[in-house]
């Protein structure tokens, strides 16, 4: 890959767009002794609509951090609370990188 990978910190509604599809698919945290396990990549559609107010109120009770691991594949790690979810969305990853320019 291009090796382009960088951390992007998100706030507010733009982050919730990603979280809406990803977090809802998490099964119960599986790990023993509080060590949560990373879920396999989840393909999130690039055309998700903006989350509703009702949705976002539940999702954004804690900060959410996004880490673009691989711009080429669109692999993004999302961190919130004690959860970590990996999503695949090249378009979203590209959009976030552009936002940092």
């Amino acid at each position: 890959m291009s090796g382009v990978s960088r951390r992007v910190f998100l706030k507010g509604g733009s982050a919730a767009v990603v979280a809406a599809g990803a977090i809802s698919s998490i099964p119960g945290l599986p790990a023993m002794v509080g060590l949560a396990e990373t879920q396999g990549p989840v393909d999130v559609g690039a055309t998700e609509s903006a989350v509703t107010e009702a949705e976002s109120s539940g999702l954004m009770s804690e900060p959410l951090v996004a880490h673009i691991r691989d711009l080429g594949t669109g692999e993004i790690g999302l961190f919130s609370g004690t959860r970590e979810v990996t999503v695949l969305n090249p378009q979203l990853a590209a959009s976030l990188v552009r936002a940092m320019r």
Partner: protein
Amino acid sequence: MSSHREAPEISKDPVADSTDLYAFVSPDSPSTITLIANYIPLEAPDGGPNFYEFSDDVLYEIHVDHTGDGVADISFQFRFTTVNNIPSSFLYNDGPITTLTPPSPSSPWNRQQTYTLTRVDRNPTSRWGCSTTVLGSGLLSPPCNIGPLSTPNYTTLAAAAVHSVSGGPFSATVFAGQRAEGFYVDLGALFDLGDLRPFAGDHAGGPGVGLMNGMPGVNSTADVNVHSLALQIPANQLTRATPKNASDPAAVIGVWTTASRQRVFVEGDGAGGQDPFWSGPWTQLSRLGNPLTNELLIGIGDKDSWNHQQPLSDGYQFLHYFAQPLLPQLLPGLYPGVFPNLAKYNSTPSNTRPDIEAIFLTGIPAGVITQAPTFTNYNGTGVKADLLRLNTAIPPASSPNSLGLLGLDVAGYPNGRRVFDDVATIALRAVAGATLGYVAKFTADAAAAIVDFGLTNGGTGTDLTAKGTEHYLSTFPYLGLPYSGYSNPSVTPVSVVTP
């Protein structure tokens, strides 16, 4: 040191740095097991105004494997909460702290910690299922031992921080707070190219710089404090079943401690618009089972990785460090002519150290120790994982020997570890070949039975204290009261003996 500052990454995060782990049948309550995990190395007793404390951001855990599979069956989790009772004051306390009371704005003690203790049990029918039981919350830690004006009756304060807790079918006695360091070793000499002061004249470089045999050892960890997580638990709440006798595999538990942080930290913006926060799953930063594993066996390029890994990794990616450790390879060169048998054994590339693997990774099967043929702390499975293994059915010794099993005291290290066990000497003698003859065709060099750090009475094991460790207690939590800052304003300079 046992595990103080033993790896590059964790040495920069002392509140998450495990230093020592102890597991033993409680001598004054033999139906219970005592587990102690120490954190925060080398606390200067006068280290104010921000005296040492556990971190609110760290998940501290003590794990127990009672099935021999190298995976935690029980974990005890400690989570701390710190409050400033008097936010406007720069002082740790603005008056004498005479009683241990819950946080309050009217307290003379400013910076105070409480904690929650949770027991997590793995569901034996599901690899990932577990149940949690909160054993206690809002539990009070004692203050650090400041001095006679601030903490005038420290014994009372520390005693009030020993709590009896319970939840569901489980119970425990718990303490979390500052104690005196109990481990002892001569680091100044050891890390000066493997010098042992009593034997410095035999060191390859010793005579050239004027060193000679018979020099007294120096306890590098004397007069400093640590922070202890101590538990005393009924034995039948730790074993998978009540063992029939000491030969029953159900009697053996494996213990280790870990510290974890969440994966992401975002610093605040410094302008009040964004507070700092942690996010994501817990990731392990520190691990400790047997003393000295990461300190003296694991290569520096793998030390940080070892801390991050689960014990089961020891049987795979780290196995070569146990099977062919470096230190025994170095000893014959550092002490020419002193270890000829070890040198000869090392000269065969295919020779490994099954004794080191047994001590650290599997426990010792019955019949191996010829002088104590029924002794075992074998895990019963052969699974290789660096755990501190304790046979809970072996009663406490009536006349303990600080050399543990090497002193034919089967209640001591490497059968668990007591606070006074001379683990540095035991490990040194083991790697020098003292234990190899039990499991391989090998005759140990005479020196392997006598090398030590010069900190106890001739290394015979009959001396249960070293300089700076005279404070051990006979009751829970067994480690002594912490040194006070007033009485120990700095670590006393050591008078190094030179010819």
